[in-house]
């Protein structure tokens, strides 16, 4: 297991009222992401536990782009990864975020 902690600046969307929620599943090539309210409205926090070693730079790039793409300030994302490709990671994160907005 490799772990990664990332704390990024982000814009907050005050109209979001996030309930904690879990998306996805820890199965081969997939991941689960737990979205919760964070402590700082101007930051977005990521905690990643991954089974695939040596991809820290890829994770950073994927998460940084995600945090730039959406108003995720004040949210925290905890991820358990079982070898998802960046495409799947981005898709899950987008789905999780869009569901918060829809809920």
């Amino acid at each position, binding site marked *: *297991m490799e772990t990664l902690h990332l704390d990024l600046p982000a814009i907050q969307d005050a109209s979001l009222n996030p309930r*904690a929620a*879990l998306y*996805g*599943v*820890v*199965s081969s090539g*997939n991941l*689960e992401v*737990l979205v*919760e309210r964070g402590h700082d409205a101007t930051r977005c926090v990521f905690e990643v*536990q991954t*089974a695939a070693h040596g991809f820290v730079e890829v994770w950073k790039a994927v998460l940084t782009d995600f945090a730039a793409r959406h108003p995720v300030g004040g949210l925290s994302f*905890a991820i*358990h*990864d*079982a070898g998802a490709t960046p495409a799947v990671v981005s898709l899950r994160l987008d789905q999780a975020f869009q569901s918060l907005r829809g809920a």
Partner: protein
Amino acid sequence: MRGLAQSYREALARLRVQALLDPGSFSEWVGPTQRVTSPHLAALEAPVSFDDGVIVGQGLLHAHPVIMIAQEGQFNGGAVGEVHGAKIRGALLRAVRDKPGAVLLCIDSGGVRLHEANAGLIAISEIMRALFAVQEAGIPVIALIGGACGAFGGMGIVARLCDVIIISEEGRIGLSGPEVIETVKGVEEFDSRDRALVWRITGGKIRRTLGEATLLVDDDIAAFRAAAGEMVGARSLFLKKRGLNPTTSSLQTLQAAQQQLGARAELDAEIRDGQVLWSRMGLGDQVSLMSPEQFNRRLEALES
């Protein structure tokens, strides 16, 4: 766009729970935010999950309060470890106290989780005892089986302890997986890659044929919901119609079951393939193409 049914087999456990129960009625106990994960998986450097692969809580089914237990087959094959098992046991013990209309047990599991095999084996034994206590309290336990892992190993035994089994054609119940039997006994004994054969041995249709499953439904969450709802709503009526009321086992009911199982074990050695049974029953060789509805109807006609 043409809509297909919402597949029970494909859905994650969380989606199944949402779609099986009345909208918005579910509340979870010891949910993912509490992060009660398996220390044993972590010790072996295996990925963990925030809910350890099982969701427990309460909700409403057609306005009747129920306790819901749903295994996530995609996480470690729905296998039972210490935390996973304890959550199920806790929910069952709670049913004894809270007396809901029913317990819904969505089994999707290969049995014991090998990474914590001893804990898993004991946990399944504890689940069995807790399940007996629920039934002794007069609360029916309804098993729903339609996930990719089916109900195998100890969870196959647990499935058969339930009062009612609702299964899809894609669902399976058994003890040893076909791969295990093939590995130990050879491909001549059981060719696990012959998927059609695997389903003729353990699949929903053969389980319904043998009277183990109560009802065969489409691979559609709405169909599972409708079937479970019918049983919770008018449960005594439904069970009476089928002559099923094993919630409380008595010496007489178990003696009758002993007779029945004894007769089945006496079936001749030809019976190594569900198709042989179906042919003898006059169902022909088109069983695999019958819809669940057609199949239930044919069997009910034969049974009456």
